[in-house]
Each structure stands twice: as C-alpha cells, then as structure tokens.
C-alpha cells in the first residue's frame, strides 16, 4: 500500500531541531528568494525541512540546497507569510527541524526534470546530485515570463541541457512547459522524469510519459503541521505527504480523486485547487 518503500529513508528517527542564523539571502527571480543557513545534518535531494520563523509561522519547505553544511530553501511569494519570510535578512534567526520525507531515486541515467514555477527549487539539487553520479539531465523549465525562470543558470551551470517555456513567450516556447515536456518525451528516450509544480502540470507530464513507460516521480505539496505522520493535515488519499512523500511515483497519484483537483485546508476541509 505504501507508495515509496524503495525510497523510504529512516524518516522515523526523530529529526534534529536547531536555531540557526540566515547566512545569505539571494533574490533568484522577482518572486523567489533563497535563504541559506548552516545545518550540518545529512539531507537528500527531495527532502524537506520545517522552517520556523519565530513569532510568525513554521512552514514545510523542500531543500533547494542539500549538500554540505550550508543548506537552503527557496521561497515563492504566495501569501502574507511567505512575503514576510522573503524579507528575512542575513543574521535573522530561523528554526529548522528535519530533514523529513523521502528523496528522489538518483539511479536513473537519462533524466528529464520538469519544473513549473518554484518547482525547480527541489529539482535543482536532485539534478546536481544525479549529474554528480554521471547522469544526463534535461531540464524543462516553465514560468510566467523569462525573468521568473527559477534556477535556469544553475541547471545550465551543472551541465544540464535546458529547455524553457514562458506564458508570455518572452523566452523559449510560448505556453506551458508541458508542451516542451511532451515534445521531449515523444522524441527522446528517458529513464525517468522528475517533476514539481502545479499538480495539473504534473498530471499532464505523467499522462504524457505513461504510453512510453517512463516512470514519473512527482514532488507534491500539502498543508503540513506535525511533519511526523501523525496529525493527518497532509493526508493525500491513503498517504501522508510528510512521511510517505513528498516524492511519489505518478502511478500512485493518478488514481487518487484528489490529485490535481483538491487539497485540504488547515481545518481538513477539502478545497478545489484554484478556489479561494
């Protein structure tokens, strides 16, 4: 029944919580900011941490930098909290607990990553690690406009081939990144697809890969509270995103009525995506 037994880390061991000072704040795009901080514990690409902004909130964030002692998270301005979080400066203190959840399986050789908007945040460290092991990575990145393409230079710098799509056509293909992904899947062989972004996008990618029998792994997001597999806030079908995910094989997600259609608000009510 569990989706990701093969990728399951010893996530049940109690994670470390520590208070650290932000060492660096990097404006990545007009709407995304990276905060770097010292965190010596081991972390794997795909995992997330609970980031506590004292006096404000504690949010689940996929690590955008996982190696070495300087980890990082990359935050998109969405609600009030993420806007306040973005204004954190070097020296400001945050609480970090984790890392939690599973990771991307780095074994495949020819990997297509498909990132929509801030979804690239979790894909970049995974691609770096895979390339470090000799993989060939093609990155299909999508955003509203050219200057919102997250980690475009980082992907290029690590040796990935980069293809882009923008809603306004200011760079690459005009339209959705799924169009690019569909073309690549139709014309080139891949051993795996990693994707993160809006669930409608991930569903399209998964559907495109299905007839070609390329396994697709999706990093999904849900409201989280405990991150320990207890409180049920992040329940998604039979899974809990915090411990069974956040990375799921698409074949496990596609049959779920909720995937790409609804999420649950902090009270546990089911809310359609896009509804306010």
């Amino acid at each position, binding site marked *: *029944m569990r989706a990701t037994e093969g990728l399951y880390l010893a996530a*049940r061991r*109690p*994670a470390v*919580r520590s*208070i650290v000072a932000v060492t660096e704040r990097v404006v990545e795009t007009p709407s995304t900011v990276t905060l770097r901080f010292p965190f010596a514990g081991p972390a794997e690409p795909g995992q997330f941490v*609970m980031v*506590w902004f*004292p*006096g404000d*909130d*504690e*949010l689940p964030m996929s690590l955008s930098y996982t190696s070495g002692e300087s980890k990082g998270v990359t935050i998109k301005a969405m609600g009030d909290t993420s806007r306040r979080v973005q204004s954190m400066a070097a020296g400001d*203190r945050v*609480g970090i*607990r984790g890392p939690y959840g599973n990771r991307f399986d780095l074994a495949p050789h020819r990997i297509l990553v498909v990132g929509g908007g801030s979804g690239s945040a979790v894909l970049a460290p995974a691609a770096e690690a895979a390339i470090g092991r000799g993989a060939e990575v093609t990155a299909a990145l999508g955003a509203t406009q050219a200057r919102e393409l997250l980690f475009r230079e980082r992907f290029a710098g690590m040796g990935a081939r980069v293809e882009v799509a923008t809603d306004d056509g200011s760079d690459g293909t005009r339209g959705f990144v799924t169009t690019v992904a569909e073309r690549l899947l139709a014309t080139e062989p891949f051993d795996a697809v990693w994707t993160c972004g809006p669930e409608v996008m991930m569903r399209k990618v998964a559907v495109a890969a299905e007839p070609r029998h390329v396994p697709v792994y999706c990093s999904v997001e849900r409201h989280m*509270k*405990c*991150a*320990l*597999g*207890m*409180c*049920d*806030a992040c*329940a998604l*079908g*039979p899974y*809990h995103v915090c*411990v069974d995910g956040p990375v799921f094989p698409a074949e496990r997600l596609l049959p779920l009525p909720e995937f790409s259609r609804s999420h*649950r*608000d*902090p*009270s*546990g*009510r*089911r809310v359609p995506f896009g509804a306010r």
Partner: protein
Amino acid sequence: MADLAVRVGSLAFRNPFLLASGVWGESGDSLVGAWAAGAGGVITKSIGSLPRAGYPNPTVEQYSTWGLLNAMGLPNPGIDEYPREIAAAREHGATVIGSVFAGDAEEFARLAHRIAETGVVAVELNLSCPHAEGYGTEVGSDPKDVEEIVRAVVQAVRVPVIAKVTPNTSDAAALAVAAENGGAAAVSAINTVRGLAIDTTLHRPVLAHGLGGLSGPAIKPVGLACVWQIYERVRIPVIGVGGISTAEDALEYLMAGARAVEVGTVVTTQGIGVFSRLVEGLNRRLDELGYASASAAVGVAHGAST
C-alpha cells in the same frame, strides 16, 4: 493463540488496540488506513460545530522517542463536512468511534447526536484537551460539569458514550465517577499531560500556542496510575490511553484495569505498521503468561496490590 477480541460494555472490538483521537483521524482514507493496518477500532479527530483551523505552527515539539508535545488546537472540518469522511471509513468496514468537543452540555449533545447519525458505534467526548480555550479540560475538570455533559449526551444518542477524562487535575478518578453517574458507558483515560517547551536561544515558547499536551512513552506511568485509580472507583469499563508503544505497555494497562487501549503517538516513531506488531506481541505475551484471552488479564494486578 490468545483471544484478543475484547468487549467494552456492549461494544465489541476485534482487538484491544484503538486508534486514539487526534491521530490520522481527519480524513476518511486515513481512518481506513489505520483499520487496514490492524487497529481494533478507530476514533475520529475531535469534531466541533464549525470548521476550525487550529493553532498556527509550530504545533509540535518532538523529544527523541520518549515524548511529543503538541498544541494542534482542535483542527477539524466541522460537523457539516465531516460525516463524508466517516462514511468513507465505514464503507471499508471500519469500526469507527466518533469523537466530539464542545463548550457546554447543550453543544455536546447536539454534536453527539449529529455524529451518531453517521453510524459510529460509539461517541467519545473530548473532556480533556489541555490547550484549547473554552474546550476540553476547561469544561472537563469539574466533576459537576462532566456529569451534566455526559447526562445531556446520553439523552441525545442511542450509542454508548465514552468520556475521555483529563489527567491535569488532582483527582481524575472523581471525573470518571462523575461520568459514570451521568450515564457514560465507559471512560477513557488519559488525554495528554499539560506541558511547555521553551527555546532558550529565542527566549520564547516553542509552540505557537505556548502550552501544549505531552504524549508518548514519558506519560505511560501517569496514564497507568489514572487507570488504576479509576478502575477501583467505577463499575463501567475503562479504556487506557497514554504512552503505549509496545504490547508490554498495553498489557500493563490491561492489568491495571483497562479493557481496551488507545494508541497514538507511537505512530510517529513506528508508523502505522505498529498496530500489527502490537497485536502479534500481545498474543505472544498472553500465551507466555498463560492467559487464554486479553480480557482475562484485565485488572489482575489489583488483587496483588496489597
């Protein structure tokens, strides 16, 4: 093979290990998951009259494997939305107990009536959440209030009523006696033990709400003592809760007088697979000790106490 099926008054469970309220009980799929994993019954998240987001994060502080402090703040989808989740669980044959929280007897009765209509086998009253203003311990610390609430609920529903009492009082057994006087079919003890964590670097409480409730192995002796004292003062069956992570822990509760137990925090360290391990472990231990059934062990330690 010892017989693990237990009865709590008129309620029958396939084994003594019930999923405790607050754990995995917000979605129907999760209730199904706990049932499929082998729980003897599943208790819903405590449901209130209206949707409630709960407190902001941080809502938990984890202490290695020995404890967990939480102040979730009774998040729940509300009684209008929640019946669909129970329906999903019942479709899969799960034995579901509905948990409710309310601010007074009248609201408790109304909610209990609504949740009973969903086909739950019993209603558990949350008289013991230690960190929600106007609810839980705040309405469940005075025996008079407990008796009044239980009586109102008993009149409003046909299913058995279970009162979950707090350990955050000088005399938990008095609350159980009050529940019995009000007509409760059973009493469950304990809820979490009020607690606090402070981050010394930040000079502030860790949890957004400040005070929270401690669960996990650290509170097992507290729960056992409460069950022990309650068992000696009431005739209605007792359900033991607090810090159970092994079959041996559960057997301690049975011997202290519990007819069934609730299991929660251990899911954070062992996953939901813990239910099948508990069932297996209890079976083995009862065999070793020569008990033909789990029920045969209930309360046996009392005879030896003096």
